[in-house]
C-alpha cells in the first residue's frame, strides 16, 4: 500500500532484497576466484573423460557438468552418460 509516498510492506522492497541477495551470492563467488565460473572446469571435464575412457568408450559430450551456487555451498554435479552399447563386457550385440 502506498501512503504519502511511503511504501508500506510493498513488493518493490522485496524485489530490491532479492536483487541484493542474488548479487551477494554471485559476487562472493566471483571475488574468491576472480570469476563466477571456475577456470578449471574445462580441464576437469577433460580429465574425467580420460579417466572414464580407460574403462568405457565415451565422447566428451557424454559428460554433463552442472553447477549450482548458493550462499553456503556450491554443488558440482557431473553426469556421465554411458551409451548402452558401450558398456564394458557387452560384446556389441546391436
Amino acid at each position, binding site marked *: *500500500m*502506498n501512503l504519502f509516498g511511503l511504501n508500506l510492506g510493498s513488493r518493490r522492497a522485496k524485489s530490491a532484497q532479492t536483487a541484493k541477495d542474488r548479487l551477494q551470492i554471485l559476487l562472493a563467488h566471483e571475488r574468491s576466484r576472480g570469476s*563466477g*565460473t571456475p577456470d578449471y*572446469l574445462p580441464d576437469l571435464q577433460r580429465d574425467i573423460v580420460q579417466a572414464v575412457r580407460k574403462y568405457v568408450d565415451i565422447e566428451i559430450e557424454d559428460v554433463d557438468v552442472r553447477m549450482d551456487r548458493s550462499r553456503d555451498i556450491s554443488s558440482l554435479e557431473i553426469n556421465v552418460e554411458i551409451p548402452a552399447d558401450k558398456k564394458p563386457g557387452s560384446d556389441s550385440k546391436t
Partner: protein
Amino acid sequence: MTEQLKEDPPFGRVVVITSGKGGVGKTTSAAAISAGLAKMGYKTVVIDFDVGLRNLDMTMGCERRVVFDFINVIQGDARLKQALIRDKRLENLSILPTSQTRDKDALTKEGVETVLNELKQEFDYIICDSPAGIERGAQLAMYFADEAVVVTNPEVSSVRDSDRVLGLLSSQTRRAETEGSEPVKAQVLLTRHDRTRIENGEMMTVEDVLEILAVPLLGIIPESQAVLRASNIGTPVILDEPSAASRSYEDAVARLTGQEVEMRIAGERRPGIFHRLFGRSA
C-alpha cells in the same frame, strides 16, 4: 497471445540487439524479446556478446547455473550443448552466457560463425545481445545478423550513437559485404519513453527520433518501474507480472515476427501529486 507451435526446419534467424550507447536497455530488451519469442512458441536462444562483463545471465536469472560459456565453445573446451542453459520457465528458451574472465579478443569471426551455424540448425531465433560501444564484441555481434534491433532512448547521445550503429549495420556486416544479398533489416526500439516529459516538451518525441534516424519503428517501451523489478528478481520483463513495459515488449516481439500490431504509446504517467498522496499501487 498466439500460440504458434512450429515444425522444423528452424528459421535460424539471427537478430542483433545493439545501440552503441550503454545503459539504454539492450540486455533488458534482449531478455524480453527472447522470452517473448519463446513464449510464442519459437525456439529461441539468446547469446551474450559482452565478453568480460557478463550480465545477461543475471537478467535472465540463471547466473548460478553457468558452467561453460560462449568462449569455451569457441575455443573447443566445451560443446555447445554443454554451454547452453535451458531456461527454467520456458522450455523453448536457451541462454548462451559469455565469459567473465576472458576479454573481447577471445571472440573470433570464424568461431562466432561456427557457433551461429550450429545454433541455426536448432533454433528459430538467435538473439545476439551486443556489448555497448562499436569495438570487436559489438562488431561481431552484428556481423552475421539478418535483422537488427537498435535500442534507442529519446536523448541526444543515444540517438547519435544509434545513427552511427545504423551506419555500421549497412556497411560492416556480412550482408553488407555480400553482393546481391538483402541488407540487414534494422528497426528502432525506443526505450525509456516518458510520456510526461514528452508532454512537457522536455523529451524528443517518437516522430523526432524517427525523423532523424529514418528507419522503421519496432516498438515504444515506456519508462517503467517493472523493468527494475524484473531485473532485481532475474526475470525477463515479459515473464513478470503484466505492466506497460511487458505489454509494449509483447507488441514489439509480435511485430518482429511479422505480425501487424498497431503502435500504441503505452503510458505509465509519472504519478502526480494527487497519486503520490492518495496511493496508487503500481
